[in-house]
């Protein structure tokens, strides 16, 4: 890769008389051609699904792998966006993702502050206990959690969709680790100025934790938006469904997978576009967040 961006002095000629600039350009062309081809291959399923979403179903049945949506139709999008419930599902998804993100950050950052900054008896075993939650798949506790919310009569509400993951072991772990790296001298200086613990949390630690907080906001929001199993069982009323579940049901077809592909693909794009926009806006943060959560520096 370094050869591609190596600076070349255009004033210097080469032995064979050809311009060195031209040689670099050819390498760049080759570079972009190869990466363009790889990118195209990588994107092919997405391109196919986008094309299928604009094709008539009968055309798809006759040419499954066609990439050019001619004749062009919006019928699948009209079917999906014309359904009065879809806008409600978007509102539900957005509200649930935003609420869970906000509440999770608040609760986990407070808990992480305590684990990172406040000495108390049993802190270490308690922290290990919390981390054990990382090893417990949600599927394993689905039924007990379902029963809990059934007893509280909270199924088919935003509360039921928001609550289960607000105390996230992963978020707590990341925040605790990050808080521990912030110099304690900053706290001590604040305490000497008469600050309370809550003030230190709000004014000292949280502003310095912006990178990890941004990472958590992005991943929690995306994770909640894409969540499937819990909304599937908890939000069964059509008014309470999230867009992931609602579109899955709307575009579900009877029989085997080769039917109504256009509708399915349109559903996938309608559900995925907000996430795509979110990704484009926060692209750099997401990449740095992946580095942060995977331990890369």
């Amino acid at each position, binding site marked *: 890769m370094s050869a591609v961006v190596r600076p070349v002095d255009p004033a210097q000629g080469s032995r064979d008389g050809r311009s060195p600039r031209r040689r670099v350009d050819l390498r760049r062309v080759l570079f972009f051609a190869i990466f363009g081809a790889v990118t195209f291959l990588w994107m092919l399923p997405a391109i196919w699904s986008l094309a299928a979403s604009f094709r008539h179903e009968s055309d798809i*049945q*006759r040419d499954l792998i066609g990439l050019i949506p001619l004749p062009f139709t919006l019928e699948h999008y009209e079917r999906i966006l014309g359904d009065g419930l879809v806008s409600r599902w978007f509102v539900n998804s957005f509200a649930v993702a935003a609420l869970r993100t906000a509440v999770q950050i608040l609760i986990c950052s407070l808990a992480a502050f305590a684990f990172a900054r406040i000495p108390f008896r049993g802190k270490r075993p308690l922290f290990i206990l919390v981390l054990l939650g990382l090893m417990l798949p949600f599927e394993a506790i689905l039924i007990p959690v379902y029963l809990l919310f*059934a007893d509280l*009569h909270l199924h088919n*509400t935003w509360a039921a969709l928001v609550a289960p993951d607000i105390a996230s072991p992963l978020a707590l772990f990341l925040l605790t680790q990050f808080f521990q790296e912030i110099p304690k001298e900053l706290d001590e200086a604040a305490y000497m100025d008469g600050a309370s613990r809550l003030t230190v949390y709000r004014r000292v630690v949280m502003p310095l934790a912006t990178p990890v907080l941004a990472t958590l906001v992005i991943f929690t929001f995306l994770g909640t938006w894409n969540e499937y199993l819990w909304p599937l069982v908890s939000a069964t009323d*059509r008014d309470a469904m999230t867009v992931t579940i609602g579109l899955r049901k709307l575009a579900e077809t*009877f029989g085997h997978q080769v039917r109504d592909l256009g509708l399915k693909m349109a559903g996938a794009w309608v559900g995925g576009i907000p996430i795509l926009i979110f990704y484009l806006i926060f692209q750099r943060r997401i990449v740095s967040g992946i580095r942060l959560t995977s331990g890369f520096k």
Partner: protein
Amino acid sequence: MKIRRALPRFVAAAALTSVVAAGAAQSVAAQTSELDLWRFFNECTSQFEGVTELGDTTDVCAVQQILANAWNAEHPELQVKTTSLVRPGIVELNAALAAGTPPDIMSLHAFRIPTYASKGALTPLTSYLAEAGIDVDDLLGPVRDAVTYNGEVYAVPIDVHGALWHINLDLWEKAGLVDESGNPKIPVGLEEFKAACKAVLDATGSPILGSGDDDVLGTAWVWASLLAQNGGSPVDADGMPNVSTPEALAALNTFLQLRADGCIGSGEIAKTYESFVNGDVASVAAGTWQVNEWDKQVADPAAALKRYYVAPFPQIGDQPASWGGSHTWVVPLGANADPEQVKAAVQYLKHAWDHNLDWTRTGHATVRQSVADSPEYQALPHHSEYLGFGEHAAYNPSTMWSVGYDQIMHEELQAALLGQKSAEQALSDAQARLVDIASFQ
């Protein structure tokens, strides 16, 4: 707005758990003025809101929803609230059963009935059905068996769906397999099938039974049909798996030989269907759900499929048989449900029963002999062509271990078809895996 009120409600509930828990004793399901009906077959409530006439729709969701709308319009005292599930809806049902909040009515595949009935999760319906005027003697034989467990009827079935033989008459004619009246000359038995296969291969270069290795329809269901055609069964007298038998092996060997001869197709089933509508494959194995789709292709001038016929799955063995299954309505209120609540649910089941003909517009076959005999049913597109399919349907085993049956058989048979295992090994492995599951039940 229920949802907007919910968050503060949750906060209050979390603080006063004991108070709320006491309130939880109130059973939502106890209301009989509203029936909670959970169904798969898509979400289309708002699309058909207020529609009570079926018109000419053949869409599975539309038929279900419009029938519910029609009921609600006629029965203000007993409203049906439909909730759509992601097929097959088992995750949702299991959670609701665990919480003690099951729906009044639920759609369920027939082969799952023993799993739930044996645990007391389903309400036995025999007496309720008789009282409501649902004559279970009108059910086709295999269908009645499929909804009966320990002598009790647990469901009102709504269809027989399964594998059919979809034929391009133009290509069959090219192969000399269409008679003077324009009907296909359907081969009966292995020798006739092989002869027809050769004629189709010679004339069109395509298999007479286009299929695929990547779908259960092209693996387990073909094998199940061949097994049933020779009188074999995947279940022994004790209800245990029985898929590694001489009959099972003979069915698989026939399957392998016909594939090797080019009579049964291979590859991807989606590509096979694409070739069929493009007029490149003479006939294919596909489901009842495909009938209306391909009828639409016939109506499309751009399609190469012009003359389309639907026959029961080819009889290659000694007797007609084809893999099949049933969608049913069950009442998951438990073995000791409130009789009044069950009666209310059964009222709606009677409505579905009376409209069985309407459901068969979807391409699926009727479950009722009286409907099968009716001119209205036989006048529906292609239904008269595969009239015998329902009564010869070979269902998946109605056992506790049936849950993993299709997938295991698909994987093992696929390995045999692709040459990764011998036929004996594949069936032996399938038997061992099924016994593993059965031993946990």
